């Protein structure tokens, strides 16, 4: 993994980019933090936020010419937030006298400040803080300069004096009634390490560096009105602060310009959109300043502009309260750590890799590819937690095994000749299709492992339908069948090493069959084929339905409104989106489009094997999706249906409405267990072989001499703990044959254990003859050495 390139990408995330109010404030007051404290009614904290950035905040906060307000994003939707008015009230209600200043050793050098006005006082204080011995030369008998113009209006003289007294308290020397002019300036230049000129007016016009305020390469720095060329108090204060930074760098001989790009007013990359913002008008003042309640109400209008499009859209980022920039830094840390805990593992395995963040990001930053690369890297370095994906990968192995895996050409004419008689041949499109058998496989129906697990009984019917409609139009192209797993679980788990087992087999079959078009019924298969098997031409089953017409089944036309939950794996496949909508409408349903539809589809929580690695996170995804609409949901991915039903949302697979099984809308929808899913795959293969190819397969399932009794509670526990019925059977069988078990004389229960591969399963049961009633199941991965 190229971690440096990754970190570069994190810098493009603008989540931490400041709002325009802060960027247009010459001293960068943290307006969002300020407004938030006011909303909470904590005026003391609000004042502290002002104080952190605004010099003499008790004074400037009352007279600031607020350049921020003219840039406020609220401007067009109810009027700019009156930040300047909020500041006035924050001072009145939240001012606390500052702590007694710490007297710092002043040994870094000597600086003369010419002019004790606002900018001069700011520069003096800043330089004093940095450890310089500062002397102010003021031509009048008081400090403050233009501040006194506000006396009696916005500022009280007592407060001006009190605030400026900090200069004396800090031990800064002030020479009053001492005018410095161009004529004697040189004397001061020679006497001090650096000079700050902030007199407002001066007889000679010096060329001032626009960023450093330095005059050529000399020790003279100019700020205040001489530099700003306006009468803004906040710009003046800012120039004093910035000049102090320059003087410090000049004296300490460090770079005058490094890392100063965003000093003063700058342009933020944040472009907050107001399309969906409801206008709220400015709160009117009932007195000269806002009252406590008025100020809170005005603050509440603030949009707190921040780019959070991805966070709003993604419950994963919400659960871990993380943004792409910090996420990437966590990954970087997790990847580089040598000793210690990889604390980001769970987070990395909780992303569904659905790609929505990239769709909503104004800069196109997406976590999907990053997470995928990270998981691969974790696997390669042996740092991927085994438990995260173990169950799903074992289930994939099951699909690859002879229990499910099956490839067949369309039954030959010879095989099917018993169908070719009246009336079958006249009324069955399927029989006619077989009759036209060409021996050349033009299409291969690939239903995928999950659809086969949960919608088992549709597969045979779909296959017959496909043979019928396709042979009717394309006599040359037979339709074959391929049961298997595309390898999506391995891809999600970052197990590149396991991909060939799926992909190479598919590729070989495709070649051997004469490069047929695959008919896919699963969105994850579609995405895996696109990624790993781009040479294979595919078409979705939904497109076939939309193109060739729906199967002739006795269906009642629905009148209900359904919301369509698009599959995230095919978010960019417009053909699928259109086909599905066309089918739904043909069947008489009306469609409610969700806010997050089509290319903005939200994941159901199955993606990325999150349901396996972090079930709680998967539940967040389901609930988020389920609550998007009141209506029942229509899906076209078997996993989506499973997840939604599990989350108690009524969901129909598109096959349910095509085959008229959207019956009894009040009956609870059943969720199949993990064991039932495996059994269904096994059963499907046997059924299809028998029904379509007339092949009888010996039943490979093991039979036992005992009968297991499992309550609903135990079944639920097995699901939660990823324990299969076959695991329980193996434990019980082993304990009965080897008598390796514990006995509890008080409860009369038995407790047995068996290690199956890398997991030890425990079963507590009651035995009555051959009846075994299971009372508890659990497992652990830690291996116990019994010797």
């Amino acid at each position: 993994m190229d971690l440096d390139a990754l970190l570069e990408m994190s810098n493009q995330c603008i989540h931490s980019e400041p709002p325009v109010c802060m960027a247009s404030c010459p001293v960068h007051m943290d307006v969002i933090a300020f407004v938030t404290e006011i909303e909470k009614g904590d005026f003391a904290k609000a004042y502290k936020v002002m104080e952190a950035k605004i010099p003499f905040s008790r004074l400037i906060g009352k007279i600031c010419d607020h350049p921020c307000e003219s840039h406020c994003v609220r401007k067009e939707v109810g009027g700019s937030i009156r930040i300047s008015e909020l500041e006035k009230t924050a001072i009145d209600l939240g001012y606390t006298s500052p702590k007694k200043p710490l007297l710092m050793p002043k040994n870094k050098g000597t600086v003369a400040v010419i002019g004790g006005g606002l900018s001069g006082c700011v520069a003096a204080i800043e330089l004093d803080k940095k450890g310089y011995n500062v002397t102010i030369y003021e031509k009048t008998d008081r400090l403050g300069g233009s501040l006194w113009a506000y006396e009696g209006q916005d500022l009280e003289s007592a407060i001006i004096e009190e605030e400026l007294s900090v200069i004396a308290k800090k031990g800064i020397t002030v020479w009053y009634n001492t005018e410095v002019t161009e004529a004697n300036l040189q004397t001061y230049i020679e006497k001090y390490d650096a000079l700050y000129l902030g007199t407002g007016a001066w007889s000679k016009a010096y060329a001032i560096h626009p960023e450093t305020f330095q005059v050529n390469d000399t020790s003279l720095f100019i700020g205040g009105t001489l530099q700003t060329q306006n009468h803004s108090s906040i710009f003046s204060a800012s120039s004093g602060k910035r000049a102090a930074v320059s003087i410090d760098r000049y004296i300490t001989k460090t770079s005058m310009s490094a890392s100063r790009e965003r000093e003063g007013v700058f342009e933020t990359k944040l472009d907050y959109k107001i399309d969906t913002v409801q206008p709220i008008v400015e709160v009117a003042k009932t007195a000269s300043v806002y009252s406590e309640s008025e100020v809170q109400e005005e603050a509440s209008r603030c949009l707190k502009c921040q780019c959070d499009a991805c966070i709003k859209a993604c419950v994963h980022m919400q659960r871990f309260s993380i943004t792409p920039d910090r996420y990437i830094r966590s990954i970087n840390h997790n990847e580089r750590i040598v000793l210690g805990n990889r604390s980001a593992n769970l987070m990395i395995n909780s992303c569904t890799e659905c790609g929505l963040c990239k769709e909503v990001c104004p800069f196109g930053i997406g976590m999907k590819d990053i997470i995928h690369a990270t998981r691969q890297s974790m696997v390669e370095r042996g740092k991927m937690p085994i438990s995260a994906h173990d169950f799903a990968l074992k289930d994939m192995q099951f699909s690859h095994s002879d229990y499910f895996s099956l490839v067949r050409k369309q039954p030959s004419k010879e095989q099917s000749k018993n169908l070719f008689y009246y009336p079958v041949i006249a009324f069955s499109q399927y029989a006619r299709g077989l009759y036209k058998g060409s021996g050349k496989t033009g299409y291969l129906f690939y239903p995928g492992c999950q659809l086969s697990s949960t919608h088992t009984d549709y597969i045979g019917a779909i296959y017959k339908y496909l043979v019928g409609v396709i042979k009717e139009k394309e006599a040359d192209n037979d339709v074959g069948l391929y049961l298997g797993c595309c390898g999506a679980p391995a891809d999600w788990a970052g197990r590149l090493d396991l991909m060939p087992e799926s992909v190479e087999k598919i590729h070989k079959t495709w070649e051997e069959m004469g490069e047929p078009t695959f008919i896919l019924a699963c969105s994850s298969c579609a995405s895996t084929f696109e990624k790993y098997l781009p040479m294979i031409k595919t078409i979705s089953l939904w497109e076939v339905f939309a193109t060739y017409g729906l199967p002739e089944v006795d269906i009642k036309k629905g009148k209900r409104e359904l919301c369509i939950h698009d599959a995230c794996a095919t978010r960019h496949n417009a053909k699928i989106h259109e086909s599905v909508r066309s089918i739904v409408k043909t069947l008489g349903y009306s469609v409610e489009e969700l806010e997050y539809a089509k290319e903005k589809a939200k994941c159901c929580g199955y993606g990325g094997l999150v349901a396996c690695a972090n079930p709680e996170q998967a539940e967040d995804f389901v609930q988020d999706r389920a609550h998007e609409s009141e209506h029942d949901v229509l899906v076209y991915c078997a996993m989506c249906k499973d997840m939604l039903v599990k989350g108690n949302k009524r969901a129909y697979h598109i096959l349910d409405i095509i085959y008229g099984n959207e019956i009894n809308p009040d009956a609870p929808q059943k969720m199949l267990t993990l064991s039932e899913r495996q059994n269904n795959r096994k059963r499907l293969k046997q059924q299809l072989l028998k029904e379509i190819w007339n092949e009888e397969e010996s039943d490979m399932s093991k039979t036992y001499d005992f009968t297991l009794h499992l309550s609903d509670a135990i079944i639920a526990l097995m699901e939660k703990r990823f324990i299969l019925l076959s695991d329980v059977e193996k434990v019980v069988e082993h304990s009965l044959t080897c008598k390796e078990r514990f006995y509890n004389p008080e409860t009369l229960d038995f407790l047995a254990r068996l290690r199956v591969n890398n997991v030890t399963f425990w079963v507590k049961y009651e035995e009555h003859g051959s009846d075994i009633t299971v009372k508890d199941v659990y497992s652990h991965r830690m291996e116990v050495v019994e010797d």
Partner: protein
Amino acid sequence: METKTETTTTWMCDKCHKALVSQKVKVRYLEGNFEVELLKCPTCNMVFISEDLALGKILEVEKSLEDK
């Protein structure tokens, strides 16, 4: 792996008809090898692990080893 587990139980070994005793037992997961006191049959050495132990301390240790 430090652990405090049950030192007595009503469970007994069904094959040997012996009460279980608390003894040092070797356990291992990934790179971790530990010796812990667990209940076992003094005759056939079959080790008893309760649900609380499996889903508590053992799970915790497994997770922390996986994140190492």
